[in-house]
């Protein structure tokens, strides 16, 4: 078996980050390696941690998740970013996120099974 895929969590909410960490730590094959609280921090951490997957919020202070996704994809065009956001049910935002290059969009509140199935299909 190969080494687990590294996951970077990006969310200004420690509640969501902890929920995601609890959920993802229960999946075999994935390991949370870091938590950024805004988009700017996410771009920095992406470069140092080189995660396999980024779980990215949209509404955040300093730099939002769409801007951060653009910056990460400029740095690494193979980056795999999944948006997990309270705006995940807003059609325009979903389409905008996919246009920017996100692989998928999950709306909050989310189900653990939804997180698992999304990460496994990346």
């Amino acid at each position, binding site marked *: 078996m190969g080494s687990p895929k590294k996951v970077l969590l990006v969310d*200004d*909410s*420690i*509640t*969501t980050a*902890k*929920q995601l960490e*609890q959920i993802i730590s229960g999946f075999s094959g994935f390991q949370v390696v870091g938590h950024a609280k805004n988009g700017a921090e996410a771009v920095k951490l992406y470069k140092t941690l080189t995660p396999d997957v980024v779980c990215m919020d949209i*509404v*955040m*202070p300093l730099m939002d998740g769409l801007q951060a996704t653009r910056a990460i994809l400029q740095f690494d065009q193979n980056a795999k970013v999944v948006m997990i*956001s*309270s*705006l*995940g*049910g*807003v*059609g*325009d*935002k*979903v*389409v905008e996120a*996919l*246009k920017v290059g*996100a*692989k*998928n*969009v*999950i*709306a*909050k*509140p*989310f*189900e653990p099974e*939804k997180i698992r199935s*999304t990460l496994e*299909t990346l």
Partner: protein
Amino acid sequence: MAIQFFGQYLLSKGIITAKQLVDAVEYQESHNLKVGDYAVQKGWIPAEGVRKITHLQQTKDVKFGEAAVELGLLTKKQVEELLTAQKNDHLYLGDALVHKGYASKEAIDKALAGFKEEQKAFAPGKIDIPSEVPLPKLNAAFFDLTQKLLLRMGGVEAKLGAGKVVSGKLPTPGIVAQVGFSGGFHTNYIVCVPDGIARKMAKHMLDLKNPSAEELDDVVKEFANVVCGNILARLAQEGKQAEIAPPERLGASTDLGRDKALVFPVVTPDGELHVAVIF
């Protein structure tokens, strides 16, 4: 589960890919015209008239046609004709996907039935909004979704009490979070949660037995964020757009200035929390 849009549901079920969804939405957008576009095409109103109508529409929560009639820019008969033309020409996302060859009609019909069934949990409930409050349907959605998401996210059974309008100073006891709306719709959503209920939410969401003050604050802020995000999703289903700011903590009271607030008590087995929407 949250309020979704149909394209996302299709994506989540693996019926279409992200690229196909983006492509179909762009195809749909290039095909579907707004009522104002039809009116301009027919030479009934100038582009400036559309801007005036849209502005009134956003401030009064009325449909485009109603605003156009109120401004005297279109007659009721003209509005009916435009709406019929728009309805006859409208290309739905499912149609666009079929047109583009990304899914069969049977697959779309089956998925649409599943989507509607799943979204039933978020069907708007009936809430009495005092007559002086503008945008009654939208304002009702704040309280309706607060109640539904308290159970879904926080594991808290809740019932709405009777709403009232408050002016002057708004008491905001407990752990308080506020989310500001901008763009097509300006307001603030405020939720005031007593410590005991916040602890119950933290236990349900994070299995925390002794949450810190920072963790309790964050649970309430994230709850407000998710309620407001789902409000935007509901607005989007009605073709309306707005933006939300990250949630922020508020003090023990808020001076409303010239604004007013619609406040609903939300009764739970562990006490009452309060939700306010500024107008």
